[in-house]
């Protein structure tokens, strides 16, 4: 187990290193220079060159990369050129905001998808199953920017029940909770259907197993069969899928955060990418890779615990 963890940790560090270099190199080739973006349309080329020099952006990418890497190892993530503040002062706050959003969405998605998935999976082909499956496909196929604008048009512009943006402004006449409703709703709508379908498929498969038939034949109530025998086995496959949703919920919610002006990690990354703010993109990239790899490791360990046939060495 310890060897497994050490190996995964090494793997994770290596992935982060490679990813960080790729991000650095890629932002080098993306169009538009940082100095031009800061100075705007009417700056002269001399001014642009001067700022480029002052920011040290005229030095080779490899030199700047290793300089930055040295900083990261000592806990200094560099200066954000977009926000003109140390990355450390920006990123954790934004990540915290996104974590709130993700946690609420996750707390809804997991139980809801298990309940709906089990209901559909245990009654394969029924009207209930068909309705749940259809609903799941529809909500998953509608992109977030569409469902975001759609929900806002109904609840904000037409009915006027909810705030249109979620800036987490404490002085707003809308409570913080009400500001979270729409972004969470869009994330749940978008993500729920996929997980429901995974749980359903797994449930359908388990329900055809001989041991379930045996349990039914020996006279156990259907409810007990599902709860005591089918569920644990049916959740082994979706478990990894559910954990992978954390990736989406934390580092993939760019669109939702932009549509609702939510001051989170996704909007920060969008701003940083549009502005070519390499230090911030890098730090965000590392966080993203870290979350991705961590959820995978947790997924592997959880998988092992759920399924005694698998042992990790």
């Amino acid at each position, binding site marked *: 187990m310890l060897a497994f963890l050490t190996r995964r940790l090494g793997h994770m560090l290596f992935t982060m290193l490679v990813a960080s270099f790729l991000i650095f190199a890629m932002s080098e080739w993306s169009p538009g*220079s940082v100095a031009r973006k800061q100075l705007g349309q009417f*700056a002269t080329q001399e001014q642009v060159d001067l700022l480029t020099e002052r920011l040290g952006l005229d030095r080779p990418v490899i030199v700047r990369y290793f300089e930055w890497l040295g900083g990261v190892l000592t806990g200094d993530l560099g200066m954000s050129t*977009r926000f003109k503040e140390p990355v450390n002062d920006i990123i954790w706050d934004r990540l915290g905001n996104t974590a709130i959003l993700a946690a609420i969405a996750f707390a809804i998605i997991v139980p809801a998808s298990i309940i709906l998935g089990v209901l559909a999976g245990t009654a394969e082909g029924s009207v209930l199953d068909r309705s749940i499956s259809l609903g799941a496909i529809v909500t998953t196929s509608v992109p977030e920017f569409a469902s975001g604008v759609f929900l806002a048009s109904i609840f904000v512009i037409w009915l*006027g029940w909810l*705030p*249109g*943006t979620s800036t987490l*402004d404490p002085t707003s006449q809308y409570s913080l909770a009400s500001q979270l409703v729409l972004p969470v709703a869009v994330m749940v709508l978008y993500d729920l259907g996929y997980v429901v379908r995974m749980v359903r498929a797994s449930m359908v498969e388990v329900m055809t197993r001989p041991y379930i038939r045996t349990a039914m034949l020996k006279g156990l109530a259907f409810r007990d069969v599902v709860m005591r025998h089918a569920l644990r086995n049916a959740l082994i496959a979706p478990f990894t899928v559910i954990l992978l949703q954390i990736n989406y919920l934390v580092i993939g919610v760019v669109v939702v955060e932009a549509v609702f002006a939510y001051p989170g990690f996704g909007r920060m990354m*969008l701003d940083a990418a549009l502005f070519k703010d390499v230090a911030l993109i890098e730090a965000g990239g590392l966080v993203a890779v870290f979350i991705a790899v961590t959820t995978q490791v947790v997924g592997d360990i959880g998988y092992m615990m759920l399924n005694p046939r698998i042992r990790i060495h």
Partner: protein
Amino acid sequence: MATSDDRKVHPYIPKLVEQLEARRVGRRDFLRTATLLGLSAPAAYGIAGRILGDGAVPAARAQASPKQGGVLKVSMRVPELKNPHTFSWVYDSNTVRQVNDYLTRTGVDNITRPWLLQSWEASDDLKTWTLNLRDDVTWNNGEPLVADQIIWNIERMLDPDVGSSWLGLMEAFLLDKQGERTVLWDANAIEKVDDHTIRLNGKSPQLAIPENLFHYPALMLWPEENGEWGPGSVGTGAFTCETVEVGKRVVLKPRSDYWGEGPYLDELQFLDHGDDPFAEASALSSRQVEGQYECNITQLPILQQVPHLQMHEVVTAQTGVVRMKVGAAPFDDPRVRKAMRMALDTRKLLQIGHAGIGGPGEHHHVSPIHPEYAEVPFMEQDIEGAKALLAEAGFPDGLNVEHRITVPNNPAWEQITVQACVEMWREAGINVDINIVPEAQYWEVWTQVPFGFTRWTHRPLGVMVLGLAYRSGVPWNETDYNNPEFEELLAKAEATLDVDERRTIMADIERLMLEDGPIAIPLWRGLFSFWDKKVQGFDHHPTSYIFAENLWLDDQA
């Protein structure tokens, strides 16, 4: 605003009054030129009112007296604000402007008036400008406003190491090149006469000093802060800054010892909703904010439906130009350039590209709101004429333009407009392909591409843009236009104070641009924004500047 009677009046002013009496200048041109030459705005309005008999009251609006109190929230990007003198975008300055002032203010009527100044006087040759400071202005730390503080600001903005864009505006007037750097052309260029009087001794005539003093980075900062700005900064404005959270919000509090009128609000906030225009529209709809900096054209249909919002609109000289490098074939033939213009129906382009908000483009880059705008025959769409010109230029079977037209991907109206132009050109047998690039990339190549679409901002005088963009050899001449006849006329216009005379020269310039010029102009942009009906005292300024000390909230509205 009292004006001392014994003050020397610019010799041109009596002539201007005569012209107004003979109705040879309009009311607005009279006001503009008279105030430009140092007559105080109330005095100018008074004269105009006396002569034209339309009342001496300057633009008093029938509205209730302002109410005190309330929190006003405005949606606007919140960038980093530490160095006001180097700001590149207007919205940067909108926060700092509530705390720090300009020496002058150009009103929504395009007339510039003194602000921190009591008055100004220009010499006959327009080379010497005397700036008289008000003596009742205090900084929010209680200190009085004196000339040394202003001189410090002016010198700092002219320091090439600071990198203020104000330097470019003043270079021809006050600076000399010394190798790579610029220095003051004369040791006495910025002269302190006394504690409330500063004299600018220029090396060449300059018509637009008051307008230049209203350039968005030309904010008067407290010298001891050394050009750095932030929460708690000292200023002469009506508000003090409490919080700046980049990308999130700014909180400003009113000053209790403000020397001017207002402020009426208990608190002013700017909230950042990011680049997605829908977020801003949602915030306005759900009353999370009561106003916005500028409305994106895509949100117009939504916001027009919202009953508690009022649309504010202003026509400006902001535009985008289809610019053709005169050295790049086929644009080296003036007939082709003219055919490109003739194929466009700018009235339709205004409808398609900007929802009808603004004015139909006139291809000479002098806007109807400019004082020296001359009415020359409007260039109507003439497909057959364009085809005939092309045939004459050697393209009887139509023209495939080998250069793609490069267009920035943002804001949206620019792409839409260019697409509509392309359709119109096709009717005249001119085939053009579009090359859309990220906005930031466009500003790296905007002076280099052979064929492109460049936005130009509003400037209060017609001669200003023409000098910046079409004089040979200047850095922003993106078309490489080089026409000695044009330059001779322009130089004459720039040195002509007389509005009538200048307009006659402008008529020649405009005709020349229509015939030979390197650009086509699809539309003059109208700017607009939506504000809650309870917000009073707001007018959308042609530069989108916000002056929050005028704003107040009427909960009954």
